[in-house]
């Protein structure tokens, strides 16, 4: 390692720990351990264009555990005790109606910085990843719907994730891509891989040389921009560091076959969920975000309504409302399937993956251009939150309070997030 790189790596605070191995002995030992000793996982599912207000939210006059399931949540009936719906949450800075995901996990004020027309801050998933990601092969996993994001109401961004500098984090755009990133096996012998890693370092050293050269004479603003390049290289360095640590450990075998073709819509989401489960099962990562396709979901359900127009169902109801409701049902079916799989997946200590995972399911857009009462559903027991409840909060409660509660409950050391004012008491079990 050259001195310049050592210097370079020192600037990052990343600590790379060795993976946690499950030997048979450990397994026997672990079965006696408490459920809480298993690592926590977080999953964020972004829905883009919201949902049908009238038929998705439970009656807000019937808070608590004893509420009738509304139409849009019916497919989740078998899991009723394992999720809670939160009502009244909002991002006070977000006034845009077409951006379901841009600020969903950040709560940032787009106009906070004078002289800039766009500003964002770190997303909740990345806050968790900074801590949980040290112990897994992948710090976090971003799944995405690629070019369909615009028509799916997600708004600017490349996934639900935004990094510590408020830059968009790119995602895997389809199941094939995601699967290969996680599980493609390495046939190359270890010695050869070591050499390749050395060559990678050599590449990075070379481009850094050019970057340093370029930096000379740049003004502050340009320098800040070029810093992104340095950060990018630093991220790769950290990943290479991880690769070195994980070099001797073979990639895990997922419990699913490699997807062959690129499916679209319903089947695609289903497959992404399978990959998501496989990633958690193999402990390849503990934090996953997914910007789901809405555009192709409709097509796959044979719905001809244009996705954006569907959200404006109030003017004509009929076909648009029906499309909106069928979309909700499909989303809930898919989520129910995901919960089934997480419940069925056993951890080494006999508990289920679902016991250690929390899914946040929602978006920054409710219906039409509305951002008040952001649809928010939490499922899973990973954060020790109150499940099975219809939780009606005071109108205007910061959505970031929910993220804060979720992060803290999962064991992330964090005092505040975005514009949070404190954890949500009603959500604590």
């Amino acid at each position: 390692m050259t001195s310049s790189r050592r210097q370079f790596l020192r600037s990052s605070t990343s600590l790379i720990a060795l993976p946690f191995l499950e030997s048979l002995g450990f397994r026997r030992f672990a079965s006696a351990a408490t459920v809480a000793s298993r690592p926590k996982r977080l999953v964020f599912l972004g829905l883009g264009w919201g949902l049908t207000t009238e038929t998705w939210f439970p009656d807000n006059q019937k808070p608590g555990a004893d509420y009738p399931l509304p139409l849009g949540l019916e497919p989740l009936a078998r899991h009723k005790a394992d999720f809670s719906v939160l009502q009244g949450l909002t991002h006070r800075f977000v006034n845009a109606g077409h951006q379901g995901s841009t600020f969903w996990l950040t709560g940032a004020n787009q106009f906070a910085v004078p002289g800039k027309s766009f500003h964002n801050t770190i997303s909740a998933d990345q806050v968790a990843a900074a801590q949980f990601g040290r112990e897994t092969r992948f710090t976090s996993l971003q799944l995405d719907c690629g070019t369909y994001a615009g028509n799916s109401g997600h708004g600017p961004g490349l996934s639900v994730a935004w990094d510590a500098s408020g830059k968009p984090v790119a995602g895997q755009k389809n199941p094939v891509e995601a699967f290969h990133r996680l599980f493609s096996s390495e046939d190359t012998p270890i010695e050869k891989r070591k050499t390749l890693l050395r060559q990678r370092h050599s590449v990075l050293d070379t481009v850094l040389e050019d970057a340093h050269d370029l930096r000379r004479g740049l003004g502050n603003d340009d320098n800040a921009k070029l810093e992104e390049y340095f950060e990018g290289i630093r991220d790769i360095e950290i990943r290479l560091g991880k690769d070195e640590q994980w070099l001797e450990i073979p990639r895990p075998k997922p419990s699913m076959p490699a997807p062959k073709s690129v499916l679209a819509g319903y089947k695609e989401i289903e497959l992404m969920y399978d990959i998501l489960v496989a990633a958690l099962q193999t402990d390849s990562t503990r934090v996953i975000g997914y910007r789901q396709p809405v555009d192709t979901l409709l097509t796959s359900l044979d719905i001809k309504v244009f996705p954006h127009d569907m959200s404006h169902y109030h003017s004509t109801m009929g076909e648009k409302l029906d499309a909106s409701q069928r979309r909700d049902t499909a989303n809930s079916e898919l989520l129910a399937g995901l919960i089934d799989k997480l419940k069925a997946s056993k951890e080494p200590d006999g508990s289920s993956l679902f016991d250690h995972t929390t899914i946040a399911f929602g978006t920054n857009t409710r219906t039409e251009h509305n951002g008040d009462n952001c649809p928010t559903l939490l499922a899973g027991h990973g954060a020790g939150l109150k499940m099975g409840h219809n939780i009606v909060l005071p109108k205007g409660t910061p959505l970031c309070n929910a993220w804060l509660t979720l992060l803290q409950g999962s064991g992330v050391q964090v005092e505040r997030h975005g514009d949070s004012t404190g954890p949500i008491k009603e959500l604590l079990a």
Partner: protein
Amino acid sequence: MRSFLAFTLGIPLLACADTAPTPNPGRAPEAVLGDKHRPLLDTHCKGCHGPEKQKGKFRVDDLSYRITDPQTAERWQKVLDALNSGEMPPEEEKQPGAQQKADLLDELAHALVAARRSLSDQHGLITLRRLNQREFKNTIRSLLGVDVDTSDLPADTDASRFDTVGANLFMSGNQFEQYETIAREALDEASVLHAAHGTQKLLRLEVESTNAAISSYVAENLDAHERAKAWVNAVDAAANRPENASVVAALRKNSKTDAIFRRSWEKIQGAPSPETFGFSTVENNADKANRAFANGHASLANQTRYLQKPGLETGAYLALHDIDGGLNGSLFIRFPNDFPPGDYKIRVRAGLAPGAAPERRFIDFGFKGRSRPTTSVHEVTGTLENPGIFEIPFHRNWKHRDQNAYGVYIREKGTADSFEQLNFKREQGRKLNGIGPEPVIWVDWIEIERVPESEEAVPPGLRALTGIPLDDKHAVPKPEVLRTGFQRFALEAFRGAPPSDRYLDRLLAHYQEARAQGTRHSVALRETLAVVLASPKFLYRAEPAETRRPLRGLEMATRLSFFLWGEPPDTALRTLGENGDLLVPQSLARETDRLLDDPRSKEFVRAFTRQWLNLDRLDFFQFNPTLYPRFDYGAKLSAKNEVYESVALLLRENGSIRNLLKADYVVVNPVLADYYGLPAIHGDQFRKVPIPPESPRGGLLGMAAILAMGSNGEHTSPVERGAWILRKVLNDPPPPAPANVPALTRLAGKVLTTKERVMAHQENPQCASCHRKIDPLGFALENFDAVGLWRTQDSYQATDDQGKPIPKAVKTWDIDPSGAFHRGPEFRDFPEMRSLVAAKDEAFARGMISALIEFGLGRPCGFSDEPLVDSLLLQARAKNLSLRATLHALIQSEPFHMK
């Protein structure tokens, strides 16, 4: 162009030599809310949010009416949100008058947009610009002569900004690796292309060869049909026997069709097996016999008709793709294995059958491969007796070999964009003659030719490597030679910025390390060069400056070239930059003209126009092929190109941008001339065609692409169209759609005209504040349907939850395009509205100039740019608002010369 030189000399020019001109910071106008709104806030809000009470810890009485900081903006936003959502004033309190409220909302929303714009003003600061996706692709092409696929790179922009704005061009580790991957692919491709340099290849396909297959296919079908008929008769005879009556009755009960009934032939005593009649494949023979029996009607007739057409000895017809295959849905030519990548031409000799309808004289051309849409559309001229030859140039990538693009096809336009379209066309044809559409395009032969490169046509990136073999057939060069090659390559890739010695040392070390590991020279070389193409000096267009300063010559060359070509300067421009000549205004003007006259300026026209006018929206939705059969893919492609070609024509002919508002001509190809119902023209290129004064065409508002964007593929959207006019034409963009406005639900299920439905929204002051401006403009375009064709009537059909029409819930009405601008003049119809819009040419020019500033300078156009906008407008006006003159003025302006 002489006149331009004179013009550029006439304007105040900038001295760019030694003295740095002080940048004009401009005065940001303040976002101010008029005092006239004070009474409303005092009356309706102050009681609870004033000196006495501060409910929700919020006061309105001390809010400044000048919005100059983010905190004040945020507080006003709260006021706006509360009014929009209807939360304030509370229901039980006295409400402000609708008109008064709408006016306040209107002004407040605009004041907040102004405040945001003012607060986010970059004051001329241009943030370091990374090559965006498009520039990266073009730059690789100009350096290595190859096309790369950049679709995997993360998107560069959101809809509200140009892809040139540096602040929005991000970078990450993943992206770095994607650049490396693409660079490697590009270098592989370049090596293969280089090895094929000068190769000529030619292959002709005499398409009558396809007829033999069709003929035997049809014979088989006829035979199978006869055998199936015999089997069906035999089964029926057995079924009619009295002893089978009860069995048959039970089977009939459970069989929806005769075919399903015959599947159970085994249960009918005496019924022969389908195998007896020659249907003896592995399984499902009864089904096969059933199908052959059913095939007796339209399909077989269609096939038989084909074989009776004239000209089959020397050619073949393009037919509608047959359900069972068989006919030539397309004609396809496969690249033989030894045909290398490069520039190709496909030539087709073809003619039209007598009596062919004029709209059926076009073909779609494209690459064969998975989900590859039509690339272009062409006209067939000539007849069977006297066929014409048309030629389509295209580039074939090496990489395409394994992406299923193993050949190229032609087919009749609009016959196979989708299955829905195909079925619709077939059904239409059957309705007409019982058989299906008659094939009308006869093809004599198709040939593909690889066009050999000229001796000197070596891309600059490869020229820099002279002396270094790209393959492993020659001796490996010495380190000094390699180092010099890397230096020259990097200098070229870095657009003239020199690489450092240490960088070159590392490159060489990297190459040698790979070699030491046993990597072949050719691979090690490409790996090393790929590093250069992922280095910051390649990826970023740096203009290093601690403080604001005028650009140096080379920087100016790069800025100009990326502005007008979207790629690096060529040798001539770079030389002028390096020796400083480019900083002389006359020389800069000359180069501007040269770049604009070069075909590469197509990139400016397309990239700018697409983003400026938001043309991407056209691809947002599928146009329903059964409602709008004429707006097929070829028509849509042509419609989009019309917008580009209309802008290109302004550049070519030194035209005024007023022509985009109203013109006595259109710029069309034969497909669009047909679409618009103009007299037929011939030859594929777009050209200027005069139109009569009463024509609704001429200008953006009459273009099919613009009108189709203002729909959702099924219905027109007057709101979308009206808002587009305000944004793009009148430079008066409506503020963003407000969040949390209560929904209007009482119209659901009602059968109303579009106007009634939309107007109902204006009862609500929250909606009226913007829609009173938007809607009348949109209604004026209602005579254009969802695909921009003229109509005089419209109808609404209510549908049920399944999307099925509800009987009798239908309404048809005569379109009434009349209306008035909000607090402005009235118009009776579209032409009058268009004339009123055309009179606002200054507003339009202002909007376009702001867009050009943002696109060209790579930063948002802020309030502090108003003096620049004013000055450019003044200069443009002196030149009849010529687009070319406007570009000249911008390029000669001080900000264009400043880092």
